[in-house]
């Protein structure tokens, strides 16, 4: 049943300048571990002290970790609801509908992970899952500045950073770090322009790639259709798509929709 299970915030960790990570304990635990790349609809059911009721809403959030039934998500301050979620305390209740969507495939010996912004959380859970299988991933993480990059000190395996201001790692875009690598598969999540670059690189170098996308989601469970990418539903058929699939897409990298379905063109 696709129902928001009341889930208590049991731990708040790994703060950056733009958000932090929380661990949630659902009242009725999910039956098995989610696949990295899957997400949950996270419901803020009551405004935290000092916030208006209008901040209450559901937002899709990637699963950033899993520990025996506890679910981790990492929240970036992007707008009213995420800001209010960041104001919640340990002991507060949220709602969690999930796990939802299709995640990453795990049959890979030399994975390369590339993330930016709120793309880092699902990649962290992916990296940890690989590590638990004895596979050491290489991870490239990008951001405006060092203390806005989520989880960079938590990834198992090798991590390389890229920052716009040069505060850490490569001074420039994270996609510029791709040049030096030759993985079995590229796993990427982050801003769509980054994904577009990643896809082009993967196609050029004939590396299989799996990209985790974001689209506006109203239901998250394949009912309304608003999250569609061409004819696919990002909430149901994605959010992870293969490079083959995306190579043909009319909408990937060019068009997305806001609440209500109004089109917004993606400028590069």
């Amino acid at each position: 049943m696709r129902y928001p299970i009341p889930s208590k915030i049991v731990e708040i960790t790994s703060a950056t300048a733009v958000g932090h990570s929380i661990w949630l304990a659902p009242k009725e635990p999910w039956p098995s571990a989610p696949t990295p790349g899957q997400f949950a609809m996270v419901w803020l059911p009551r405004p935290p002290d000092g916030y208006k009721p209008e901040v209450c809403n559901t937002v899709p959030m990637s699963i950033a970790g899993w520990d025996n039934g506890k679910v981790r998500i990492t929240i970036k301050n992007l707008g009213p609801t995420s800001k209010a979620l960041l104001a919640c305390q340990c002991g507060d209740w949220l709602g969690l509908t999930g796990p939802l969507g299709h995640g990453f495939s795990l049959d890979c010996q030399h994975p390369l992970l590339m993330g930016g912004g709120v793309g880092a959380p699902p990649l962290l859970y992916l990296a940890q899952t690989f590590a638990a299988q004895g596979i050491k991933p290489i991870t490239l993480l990008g951001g405006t500045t060092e203390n806005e990059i989520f989880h960079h000190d938590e990834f198992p395996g090798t991590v390389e950073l890229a920052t716009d201001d040069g505060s850490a790692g490569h001074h420039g875009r994270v996609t510029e770090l791709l040049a030096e690598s030759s993985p079995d598969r590229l796993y990427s999540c982050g801003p769509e322009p980054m994904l577009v670059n990643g896809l082009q690189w993967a196609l050029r170098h004939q590396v299989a790639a799996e990209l985790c996308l974001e689209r506006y989601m109203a239901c998250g469970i394949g009912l309304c259709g608003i999250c569609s990418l061409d004819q696919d539903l990002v909430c149901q058929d994605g959010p992870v798509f293969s490079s083959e699939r995306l190579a043909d897409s009319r909408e990937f990298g060019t068009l997305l929709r806001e609440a209500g379905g109004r089109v917004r063109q993606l400028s590069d």
Partner: protein
Amino acid sequence: MANLRITLAGLDLDNPIMLASGILDSTPGILQRMAETGAGALITKSISLKPRPGYPGPTTVEIAPGTWINAMGLPNPGLEEFLNEFPLTTLSVPVIPNLVADTPDEFAKLAAGVAAAGAKIAEINLSCPHPKAAYGGSLTAQDPEAAAAVVAATTKHLPVIAKLTPNVADIGTVAVACARAGAAAISAINTLAALDVDPELERPLLGNGFGGLSGVAIRPIGLRKVLEIVQALNHANFDTPVIGMGGISSAEDVVRYLLCGAHSVQIGTSLTGDPEHMSAITRGLAEWMDRKGYRELADFRGRILEWFS
């Protein structure tokens, strides 16, 4: 082989199974996908004059297996962007815009708009707030006169399907009023007025508080309302076709509605997470008819009525 073809207000449909409004129909891409599942026609999400972002979440919650409450808040990009972007005339199956507004005038503008863009027929969502202040929180389709006024205002521009709410004591009277005002067809049921509450969180389950019930559990209510509409129209000597819906999740459910006298049906909630289920249902209807030896829908349509005369 069973012949599933029907005519709806002059429009030829390959089969009597349509996609219901609001489910897997809010973008041109998903509409294209649904066209490929072999539906007889596709109803779009309700379109309003102005864009509507929709309500905060949760917007949809499954409260028992296959039974949902929802309050989407009629999210849509507004008439103008809808007409720019949506394939009203180019898909392999007819696309029927569903319109929603607060007054007959606004409904008329919407009807004029979609007619000019090539729509051959529109569905009007009468489960919208009642325009007369006196009626407070009630719905247009709870008042036969108000419903008829919207039908009259829209049907000048193109044939309309009047979509009714089940939240009334007597749906037959509303249906007859719409037929008399010129509705080309009646569709029912929209969702049932509902509310659910989370006992741990001690608050309503939907972002909007109130919502509508849909899915498997409402089938017996939909069947009853459809039968009541068919009986009322017969009694008033209208042969207006009735499009049945509510809780259809299998070919057998389609048969149930047709047996109650429905001319055709719409399917919504049961496609959740499985758009291609539409194909299985359409195939199943043909198989059922073949097994039963029926060649035409008319061979069994309305057979239940004899039990209520």
